[in-house]
């Protein structure tokens, strides 16, 4: 009995100790929480977003040392290769990438334009694909690496006004499946995490959060109420850790029960 107690103390299949993990969108919301919690699990974290001041705020909550801040607009695709080179030269080969950078909107079809489509696909899809392409190169990522895309329940089910946002999230789900096939030989895994509604700066101005009636309906649809950023961060930790080494091409839905009925 005492022996097994000793075991439980040391047993942690979810550890990220020794891993180098890039978190995009680390200046806010889910990305910020994910970066903080990865550092608590022992990872060296590379924070990436446009706003340096808000990343410094995230940085001040990190545990451990050697973490990095990279200020970058991920829609400037041409700058991605040299940026990844800089990261690898500073911390060594990467073990994990969490693509949290993203934008959201509620927009009926009548108001959709190709300009809007372009903006959303560039930020939510192209940036994650381009960054993953560069990070996953042999010279930049260790075997057994893990890449996570932040999709959404809106990539799986529908809601009025969510077609534009949902299309970008559905694209990531499809990307993860085929990339899982392409990279299995190198034991690099691609997965998605699909959160339900979590109050963060991405949606605090959107109708479903500010309109009291809509907000209540939204809360009721989530059987366990609205989520918080750490609910999503913990799912990311699982997918980044060795505990999920046999999981690839999947979509982990973390939504308080939103999609079960």
């Amino acid at each position, binding site marked *: 009995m005492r022996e097994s107690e000793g075991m439980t103390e040391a047993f942690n299949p979810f550890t990220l100790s020794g891993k180098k993990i890039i978190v995009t969108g680390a200046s806010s919301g889910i990305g910020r929480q994910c970066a903080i919690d990865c550092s608590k699990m022992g990872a060296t974290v590379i924070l990436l977003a446009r706003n340096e001041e808000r990343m410094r705020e995230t940085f001040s909550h990190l545990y451990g040392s050697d973490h990095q801040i990279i200020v970058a607009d991920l829609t400037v695709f041409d700058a991605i290769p040299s940026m990844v080179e800089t990261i690898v030269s500073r911390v060594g080969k990467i073990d994990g990438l969490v693509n949290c950078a993203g934008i959201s909107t509620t927009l009926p079809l009548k108001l959709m334009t190709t300009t809007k489509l372009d903006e959303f696909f560039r930020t939510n899809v192209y940036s994650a694909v381009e960054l993953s392409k560069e990070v996953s*190169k*042999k*010279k930049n990522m260790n075997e057994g690496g893990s890449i996570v895309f932040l999709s959404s329940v809106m990539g799986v089910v529908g809601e009025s006004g969510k077609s534009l946002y949902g299309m970008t999230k559905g694209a990531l789900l499809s990307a993860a499946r085929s990339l899982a096939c*392409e990279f299995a*030989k190198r034991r690099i895994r691609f997965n998605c995490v699909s959160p339900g509604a979590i109050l963060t700066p991405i949606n605090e101005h959107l109708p479903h959060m500010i309109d009291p009636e809509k907000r209540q309906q939204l809360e009721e649809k989530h059987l366990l109420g609205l989520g918080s950023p750490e609910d999503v961060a913990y799912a990311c930790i699982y997918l980044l850790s060795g505990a999920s080494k046999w999981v690839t091409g999947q979509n982990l839905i973390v939504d308080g029960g939103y999609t079960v009925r």
Partner: protein
Amino acid sequence: MDRKNFIEKFAEALEIEEMADLQEATEFRSLEEWDSLAYLNIIAMLDEEYDIQIENAAFKQLRTLGDIIGYIENNQ
């Protein structure tokens, strides 16, 4: 045709770091990096860089890097 440049592009497509391992006589199917994805990468590279569309049956005849170079030269 610039043969050295072709070998560089081949290495890049397969992410082979040791360029010294690659000669015109190299039998590419015996490279550790060669697999079905590598095949797709090479087919795409030939199309993109040399405007060569090669069919599976024709590609199967090629054994060495020099054979690929020969194919490009004969079909451009």
